[in-house]
């Protein structure tokens, strides 16, 4: 890895939700380091804890019922864990920003889109209203919307256009870190292509570091430099894009690849992962994936796997790699 500025630093983050006397462990021991200009893909199924991790990075989790524990959550050197409310408000939007999945609900229907971008600029930068409006219009053009449409209201835009507006708002103050939570899931494929393309351009232009939360490995392959695979609240495999895709180690990651319909291979039958993710209220004591894992041994059900180093760019949390010859099928094929 190159030595770049670390813009997001999360160490041993755990998030629990205490509801009705039960404890749901949403995120456990997650460590993420993000450098300037890089994109991390956070992959996993519904309920794996991806969004909770992101919200914790912004310190946006409702406490109670949430309980956040972490050694460190830093955004551009700002301690998010112990910051006061007004400090947090300054950091959010300026240093770190988030795009939510549904563009339909993230915009206020009673203000025109230009005003909404202008507002977020005024909040963080000392500009006059005119200057802020001018900057808002530049942002609109940047995301590919003609400035004449700045006076239009959200309902006059299509889904893809709305998501562009949301991105324009998030990027208006050129944050160092942008967390995109399934930014294109609600969009059509051809529109998704446009939005992804645009996000890539913006990242290159501003050097923004991004966390791309998605369940679509295709999007990861196209837009990310690093990949973290989450399962039942833990990161079970972490590494560079190339390592994760071409040197897959964890059985769950392999399962994800096998369940994907591939447009270049019509004949192969899909191999789904059997069963489903454990309930966050009753995560088994051993490896959480053991019950669905074709390689699991009794040992896996008892012992929590530690994170093992595959090489400098790749870690995996699987017990079987303690055995010298163990290798999952996908790696055998690729290797």
């Amino acid at each position, binding site marked *: 890895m190159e030595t770049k500025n670390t813009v997001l630093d999360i160490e041993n983050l755990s998030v629990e939700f205490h509801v009705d006397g039960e404890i749901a462990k949403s995120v456990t021991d997650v460590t993420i380091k993000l450098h300037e200009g890089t994109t991390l893909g956070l992959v996993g*199924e*519904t309920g794996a804890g991806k969004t909770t991790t992101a919200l914790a990075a912004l310190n946006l989790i409702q406490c109670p019922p949430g309980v956040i524990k972490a050694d460190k959550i830093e955004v551009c050197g700002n301690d998010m864990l112990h910051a006061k409310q007004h400090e947090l408000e300054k950091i959010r939007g300026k240093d770190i920003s988030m795009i939510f999945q549904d563009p339909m609900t993230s915009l206020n229907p009673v203000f025109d889109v230009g005003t909404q971008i202008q507002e977020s600029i005024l909040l963080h930068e000392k500009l006059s209203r005119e200057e802020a409006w001018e900057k808002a219009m530049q942002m609109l053009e940047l995301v590919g919307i003609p400035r004449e449409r700045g006076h239009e209201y959200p309902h006059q835009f*299509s*889904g893809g256009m709305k998501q562009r507006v949301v991105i324009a708002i998030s990027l208006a103050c050129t944050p160092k870190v942008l967390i995109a939570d399934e930014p294109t899931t609600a969009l*059509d*494929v*051809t*529109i*998704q*292509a*446009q939005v*992804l*393309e645009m996000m890539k351009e913006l990242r290159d232009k501003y050097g923004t570091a991004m966390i791309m939360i998605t*369940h*679509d*490995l*295709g*999007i*990861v*392959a*196209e837009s990310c430099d690093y990949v973290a695979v989450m399962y039942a609240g833990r990161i079970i495999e972490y590494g560079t*894009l*190339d390592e994760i*895709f*071409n040197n897959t180690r964890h059985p769950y990651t392999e*399962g*994800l*690849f*096998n*369940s*994907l*319909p*591939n*447009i*270049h291979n*019509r004949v192969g*039958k*899909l*191999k*789904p*992962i*059997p069963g*489903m993710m454990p309930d966050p209220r009753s995560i088994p004591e051993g490896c959480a994936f053991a019950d669905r894992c074709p390689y699991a041994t009794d040992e896996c059900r008892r012992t929590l796997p530690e994170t093992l180093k595959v090489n400098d760019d790749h870690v995996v949390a699987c017990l079987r790699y303690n055995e010298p010859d163990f290798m999952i099928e996908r790696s055998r094929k690729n290797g």
Partner: protein
Amino acid sequence: MGEVLLEVKNLQKYFSTPRGMLHAVDNVSFTIEKGKTLGVVGESGCGKTTCGRTILRLTEPTGGQVLFEGKDVSKYKGRELAHLRRDMQIIFQDPFSSLDPRMSVSQIIAEPIKYNKLLHGKEAIDARVLELMDTVGLSRRMVNSYPHELDGGRRQRVGIARALALNPKFIVCDEPVSALDVSIQAQILNLLDELQDSLGLTYMFITHDLAVVNHFADDIAVMYLGQLVEKAPAEELFDNPLHPYTKALLSAIPVPDTHAKNKRIVLKGEITSPINPGEECRFAKRCLYADDCCKGKGPELVEVKPGHFVACHHCGIANQ
């Protein structure tokens, strides 16, 4: 050529809106052979869902014919319609809203049986419910569960069991996996595949995700703003897409492979409004190849190769 189960001729469905007529489905024609799957692909608002519902008579068609086993079902009423409902079923996209939250799994699956009086007596019905649950791979102990207690995959299995309860011949699958996680998605796709083999079902598989139908469909029809723009056997369509929209759609799918050299066609331009669309090709405003010819009369669906139909001025007969 196998036996044709369903034939759709010039199907039309318009909705009247305050701003004019919305052409949701416009002159769509296709046939599905018995035991085969037709994949209908398109983006939101292209009319694929409306098309499926119009065939099932969940909404009334504005015009055109739907021939099921040779008989025009678009005029069926009363008892005939009730009988038709036994032969044609639907699996819905959203497993959250397609199950009545007030009914237990057994009630949901039993309802079509009871209502159509297929079986009589509690014991016979209960036995059938359990049999159906086995068929779709639902554990029997969930029989008294309510939808909110199940996860998405299991809910979708309940929806499938309900559709199978009437022993249908034809099922419209309306995006049955798009609301599910990938690993669950594959489970459901495999289940549908197995059911097709064992029960001899015919599917119309509606989806926005070309990668999903790739594994599944024998033929694929691509819709754009209410019209069929291309229809071909699946292999042919993937290997040799002709319509510019199909090409863009194919290239837009993100491929989970770091080596893929994906030359993406990014579409630009405004989407034509489906309300009172003009005569011209509806894709022309976003098309890379559009010229004056496209602004005239819209292209007809033409057979360019055996089984491969395309509606485009530039890749139809002129191309040959």
